[in-house]
């Protein structure tokens, strides 16, 4: 019963802004994957030339001598 505040504070403190599923409430992985796919279809991604793989972004940045501009977003909730 007290896991939510404790875990939320833990993640808040760890800078993770994520909370895990509580025991007995396993995440619906297929639903999470569907939300991720939907997010990846957002028009702004192609428009802005966003790369979605960190290793690829680092390789490109090194090859072209550029900074990496990171946008941290999420798909599991609005």
């Amino acid at each position, binding site marked *: 019963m007290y896991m939510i505040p404790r875990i939320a504070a833990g993640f808040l403190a760890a800078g993770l802004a994520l909370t895990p599923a509580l025991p007995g409430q396993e995440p619906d992985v297929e639903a999470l994957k569907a939300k991720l796919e939907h997010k990846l279809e957002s028009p702004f991604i192609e428009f802005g030339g966003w790369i979605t793989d960190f290793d690829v972004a680092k390789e490109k940045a090194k090859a072209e001598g550029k900074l990496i501009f990171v946008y941290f977003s999420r*798909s599991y909730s609005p």
Partner: protein
Amino acid sequence: MALENGPFSSKDFPGFSETVVPYLNIASRVPERKDDGLLGEYGGTGFPTLMFLDPDGRKIMRSGRSQAEFEKGRDEAQEFLELVAKADAGDVKAQIPVFLKQLEFGWFTVEEARAKLAGFEKVSKKDLKAIEVLLVETEVRGLAKQAGRDLDKRREAGARCAEMWGDKQVPEDMDCMIQFWALIADHAEAKGDKKLMKKVVKEADKTVKKDTSGRALVKILEQRLKDM
């Protein structure tokens, strides 16, 4: 969504994005997905977060949320990298300012930072004081990162933070301070130490002031104190 429908979709954005490598990291909670928890590794505390990294992926600075702030941030980040290159090439005047920034951005472990500090010929008292605060923050971030989501490790990290607090070693950076209080709270709760928890709540309340994440933490800690 405001960014995606706003500045990221404006006609000016492609001109900016061509001058950098725009990387979109999406936290999805899909198990075992690569880089899903990357925000936490960079000390982020919520979505959206924007940052400039160097080509090796080291954090330089956060960005604001408008086109003008993207461009200003890019130029400042680029200037910083040029200063780093000067310092690395032996420009003595550049070395301490660069070192302070690198510490602030979490480029070093505490051990690496102390080794680098030992190599400087002359450090002013003012700079030394600033460096000591940054070393405290480096240690706290390192503890939080190592502990991650593991509650037992967080409690151990909290014990160390409580020691640091006793030695008057307290972070000044807001995100770091929030991590610090939350870790000590985990430790206090594990010990069943209500007195310590009260002190944490009181001090957190005083130090986070009006910061949104800080106020959210204080609310959670107040509830946890009531539940003890």
